[in-house]
């Protein structure tokens, strides 16, 4: 209890100022404007910003220096995220820097590191995650997409689903079955797939948000060099779990959550009940206070996990699960509060307003469409990265020995 010391680092003030200054100068006005309106970025807009961050090494600041990172302490990474959030910059991309990258530098060979890490560091390339399949959701290890050896290649056949931004991706890291006879966790390999390879079809899934974010990805005799396999054949499950722990910590973007709370506070100020702003309403203020308590708690849990990750190279599977549970519940709670405000404007959802060039007349506060989009999108927060139920199974088994 209360044993670990997390140093209180005032030296970060200078770094914070540097990030602020950078955002001031480098954040393109079109992105700034879109972020402010909650509009969605085009891929090229996003990439142009990630490349600017990459020029400072900031996409991967928390990576160890030996792998091209800046070796940031947890506190510095949190400070970085906070400053980005305050500057209205887009959230960091996690597929490369948080998910693919650490697996590659921890388990990959030198050639793979040389090939892939620079692109992630520089922010040039877009990654996606090939985990879920139609028959393998909570039960991820039940995946069926197979990779059969043929000379120096694997021939990949099968299907992935719920693949976020696959339609933008240059590369996919994927789990495939390389041994059809082994026990389910033991026949899986972790491979990197160039999305331009013939035989890959990406089919959009329109979400309840009405947006296109998710995809189905079909593999029809797709040739992937065996050299693209990370680590040993049939040991992919180990790397997958390592990645999942990182993913789950990454699922909780504290700066984004903080930004959401600020957004809701703003909505309350802009919305009136019998002429008086909701920001005067004690019930709403109480809820806001409770959300702030939730945020402070998640930040405290996050600080622990980042410290653990620094000490042992990765967050603990249990700690990450707990953080993911509470972080995503908080996110949903915030966005539910937003929706409760918007009911007073008739719960209008002008999803077209999320795209640049829309010139309709907004009903209700400017951020309405963004808040509803986020609300709907984050219904999945307790599903993706392993559902809340799966997280609890993990903790029950791993931490409580049940």
């Amino acid at each position, binding site marked *: 209890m209360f044993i670990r010391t997390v140093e209180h680092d005032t030296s970060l003030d200078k770094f914070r100022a540097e990030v602020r200054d950078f955002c001031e100068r480098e954040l393109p006005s079109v992105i700034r404007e879109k972020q402010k309106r909650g509009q969605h970025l085009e891929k090229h807009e996003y990439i142009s910003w990630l490349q600017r961050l990459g020029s400072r090494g900031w996409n991967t600041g928390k990576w160890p220096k030996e792998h091209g990172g800046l070796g940031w302490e947890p506190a510095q990474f949190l400070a970085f995220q906070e400053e980005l959030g305050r500057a209205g910059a887009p959230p960091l991309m996690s597929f490369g820097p948080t998910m693919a990258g650490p697996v590659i530098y921890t388990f990959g060979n030198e050639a793979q590191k040389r090939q892939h890490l620079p692109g992630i560091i520089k922010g040039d390339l877009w990654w996606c995650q090939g985990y*879920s399949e139609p*028959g393998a*959701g*909570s*039960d991820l290890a*039940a995946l069926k997409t197979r990779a059969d050896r043929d000379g120096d290649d694997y021939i990949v056949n099968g299907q992935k*689903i*719920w693949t976020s931004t696959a339609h933008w991706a240059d590369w996919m890291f994927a789990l495939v079955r390389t041994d059809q006879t082994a026990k389910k966790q033991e026949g899986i390999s972790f491979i990197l797939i160039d999305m331009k390879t013939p035989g890959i079809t990406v089919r959009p*899934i*329109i*979400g*309840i948000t*009405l947006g296109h974010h*998710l995809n189905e990805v079909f593999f029809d005799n797709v040739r992937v060099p065996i050299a693209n396999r990370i680590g040993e054949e049939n040991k992919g499950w180990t790397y997958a779990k390592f990645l999942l722990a990182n993913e789950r910590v990454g699922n909780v973007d504290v700066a984004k959550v903080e930004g959401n709370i600020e957004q809701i506070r703003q909505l309350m100020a802009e*919305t*009136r*009940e*019998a*002429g008086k702003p*909701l920001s005067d309403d004690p*019930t709403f203020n109480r809820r806001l206070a409770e959300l702030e308590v939730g945020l402070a708690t998640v930040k405290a849990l996050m600080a622990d996990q980042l410290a653990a990750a620094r000490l042992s190279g990765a967050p603990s599977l249990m700690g990450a699960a707990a953080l993911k549970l509470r972080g995503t519940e908080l996110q949903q709670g915030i966005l*539910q509060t937003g*929706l*409760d405000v918007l*009911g*007073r*404007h*008739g*719960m*209008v*959802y*002008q*999803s077209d307003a999320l795209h640049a060039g829309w010139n*309709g*007349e907004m*009903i209700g506060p400017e951020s309405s469409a963004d808040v*509803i989009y986020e609300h709907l999108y984050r*219904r*999945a927060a*307790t*599903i*993706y990265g392993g*559902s*809340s*139920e799966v997280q*609890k199974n993990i903790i029950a088994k791993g931490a409580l020995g049940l």
Partner: protein
Amino acid sequence: MPSLSSEERQQLHDSLLELLGDKYTFEQWKKIARSPGGEGFGRAEWKEFAEMGWLGIALPEEVGGSAGGLTELGIIMAAVGRFILLEPFLGTVVLGASAIEKAGTEQQRQMLSEVAAGKLLLAFCHGEPGGGYARDWVKTVATRDGAGYVLTGEKGFAIGAHAADQLIVSARIGSENGPVGLFLVPRSAAGVALNQAPALDGRPGATVTLAGVKVGADAKLGTSDSDRLGVIDEVIDRGVIMACAEAVGAMASVTDQTVEYLKTRQQFGQPLSKFQVLQHRLVDMSVSTEEARAIVHAALQALDDKTRDAQRLVWMAKVKTAQCARFVGGQGIQLHGGMGMTDELSIGHYYKRLTMCETLFGDSEWYLRQLSLRRDAA
């Protein structure tokens, strides 16, 4: 209050489920909802509902209705919820018709026969920007103009306003301090401007700007200039309980769908329905649906019996139903996993409709506040 017997109610219920189960499949639903350039609901379906006698169920016999009670209307609304029907029941049959019935002259009430026949669509345009859920916030003014009136003001978003033949607009008569009257305004009248937009659940509606809209003396519901806030209160209460009844039907469907899905979805070598955690979640969904059903039923009966605590029960039903709808809708998506997140499956649409029912006319927190402020009314 006249109302049907239990047997007649059962027949009504069965005929609703039979016809809708047969014709209003989710495939059909998507076709109607996504019809390019469509109004977001089915005109042909509306006509058929009229022929079935559903639109006039609670209207007087002299206008072609069945003189049923609100309980019967509730049975219909529960079916509306079960199949997430897109047609304008709430705006036309519940709100619009009851405003005319309660406030209209004998002659105006003849319009109800067109409602029952499915030939007249209405929208109740009362709430205004800045008012939130407050029921007495009316800034729109109807100044006198000869024998008629000129209406000026802004009305908030109302589902179905884009397609209504007549808008029922509340406005202060004479000046901004005048009594609140209700006016029939043709949607096509000069000076009426609509900003059409979809609601969260995709259903179109519009905000309405009235820029000096001239209407005749007979546009005013009723003849006197007395304040109609009391009628508006009753109309909104009717909207509240019917949105609750709709939500109860939708919750029942979500629970059924989720039970079925978990029975078929295999994970870890067995159906998801074998996991105790998910079983208990389904139980909580089922019990929540049952709770809402029970209190909505009690409120419907209190309205039909005109008991003293009827309004309070309606508000309580709204609180409970909204809370249950939030839980059931959310868990419907959660337990469907990724499948719950696509626009192609019905579950997300139920979630959205439940969210609408939850917040229409005020959410659970708002009614809890009202209940605690007006405890003496208990």
